């Protein structure tokens, strides 16, 4: 008993390519130069938390590419959502998009993604990480958040509470049942997506011809894609102005540097910058972009601010309406 209190949580046996502690992100610290961080695929992150009956902001792990192995030091419930990474618990193949009860000593291992890039691993009540500037989100470039501002390393202990399913059995047995998001309701990750984009910022510094080119070109994800941004390759776009006075950069902003190749800026972007921007991608679509690998194809499609709000709220109501079902 006392032993389990000392070492409650999960031990990182193998950290994988890039595994990061993330909550929904850090907001309100842009004036210090601190960016948002948070899950690139917010939808998959929120599903992982819902599957664990958590609040949507609970701290989870974002696993990019794969290779994470954890050893449970505690009896609890966990769920993994997102990219198609092979999951085994104690060597037995398991599916994603559902929760599992695990016991102290269990080994949870993720292989490498066959479709998509990022997975989210949530535990009941979230990982217990001390927030920095109001958030546990890890931004490695800033050295802020997570465990000492770094990505996970082998040997790290990730604290969480014990939620022993047997202890609670007589209280409310229904609340202990595992949950699943049925297959047809799960996000489908493909290699080709549409990025709905609100024309904004320096839009009028791009001629109508350049804007038509931009919105009719198929772009390919280059080898430079990370949590800061996705650099794309395709038809170069030219802007009337080369640089602008540095200004605030919002999530999803599409920057056009001198070489004309668009960069979609994501969670770990710089807070301010001086390249012209043609618009900003809706958050529903940046979540999908964050699951694309090098070679993935994107088309930008212009939408109004009203349409952007519609897309956001339709997706939100769909998410809220979707019920998880219990499973064993």
């Amino acid at each position, binding site marked *: 008993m006392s032993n389990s209190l000392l070492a409650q949580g999960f031990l990182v046996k193998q950290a994988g390519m890039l595994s990061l502690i993330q909550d929904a992100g850090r907001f309100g610290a842009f004036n210090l*130069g601190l960016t948002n961080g948070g899950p690139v695929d917010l939808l998959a992150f929120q599903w992982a938390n819902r599957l664990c009956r958590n609040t949507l902001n609970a701290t989870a792990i974002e696993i990019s590419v794969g290779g994470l192995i954890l050893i449970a030091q505690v009896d609890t419930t966990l769920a993994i959502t997102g990219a198609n990474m092979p999951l085994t618990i104690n060597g037995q193949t398991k599916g994603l998009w559902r929760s599992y009860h695990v016991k102290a000593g269990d080994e949870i291992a993720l292989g490498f993604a066959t479709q998509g890039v990022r997975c989210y691993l949530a535990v009941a009540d979230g990982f217990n990480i001390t927030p920095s500037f109001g958030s546990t989100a890890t931004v490695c470039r800033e050295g802020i958040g997570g465990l000492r501002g770094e990505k996970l390393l082998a040997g790290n202990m990730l604290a969480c509470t014990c939620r022993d399913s047997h202890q609670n059995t007589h209280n409310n047995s229904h609340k202990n049942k595992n949950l699943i998001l049925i297959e047809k309701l799960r996000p489908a990750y493909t290699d080709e997506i549409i990025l709905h984009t609100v024309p904004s*910022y320096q839009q009028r510094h791009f001629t109508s011809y350049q804007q038509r080119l931009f919105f009719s070109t198929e772009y390919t994800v280059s080898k430079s894609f990370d949590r800061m941004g996705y650099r794309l390759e395709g038809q170069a776009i030219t802007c009337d102005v080369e640089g602008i*006075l540095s*200004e605030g950069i*919002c999530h999803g902003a599409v920057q056009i540097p001198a070489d004309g190749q668009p960069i979609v800026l994501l969670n770990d972007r710089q807070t301010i*910058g001086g390249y012209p921007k043609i618009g900003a991608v809706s958050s529903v679509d940046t979540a999908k972009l964050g699951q694309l690998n090098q070679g993935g194809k994107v088309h930008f499609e212009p939408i109004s601010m009203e349409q*952007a*709000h519609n897309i956001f709220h339709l997706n*939100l109501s769909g998410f809220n309406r979707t019920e998880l079902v219990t499973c064993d």
Partner: protein
Amino acid sequence: MLENLNIHIAGENALIIYFGEQDGSQVSANISAKVQQAEQLIRKAMAQSLAPDIIDLVPSYASLMVMFNMMTTDYHQIRNQLRTLLQSIDHHLKEQVNHDEANIVELPVYYSNESGPDLSIIAQRAQLTVEQVIELHQAQEYRVYAIGFAPGFAYLGEVDERISAPRLGTPRMKVPKGAVAIADRQTAIYPSVSPGGWNIIGLCPIDMFNAKATPTMPVNVGDRVKFIAISKDEFFTLGGTLEVSYE
């Protein structure tokens, strides 16, 4: 009707207000002061009526980005609220800045060839002595125009034209924490070790960003900064270190 105030769309949950020129392409202390006043006004409103609606504010040289919460408000509502809010101080915004009211922060700098490897190059280009370059850098009060690029990185302007210097052709892989540097007519202090292409003229022993301190940064956007030359001994006394390599 507000002149010289343009609220533009940035993204689905962000608006950007440009001050001065239509696209905010002009650096001036007056415009920067307007940005600062607007920011303070919105922050005050955030403590009251706009509490859940605004997520973050990003002031910069001539613009203020406002990120809003799509769960509690929308583009039309927040735009109207910002217009009303800023209209009420329209006449204040048009007033000239009173520099005396700005918060003045003094920052010590150890200027020398060992702490500022680019001092002699700037001096040569300007046909000045190293001492004169140091003198000119200290002679002026600088305004904090923006904070960004990295946590705690404050863009200060503008340095005397004679000591302005283009960015290095090849950025250094490693600029030490506290490096005081010049790029064109801007000057800044690197808050932590990072790559960088600015010309280094000295070292400041004061933390520009300390996550554990309150306040986290010694300066805010809109503050005035004055550099004060210190000796090597004073630099060490204030906690500075010279165990740095300029790669």
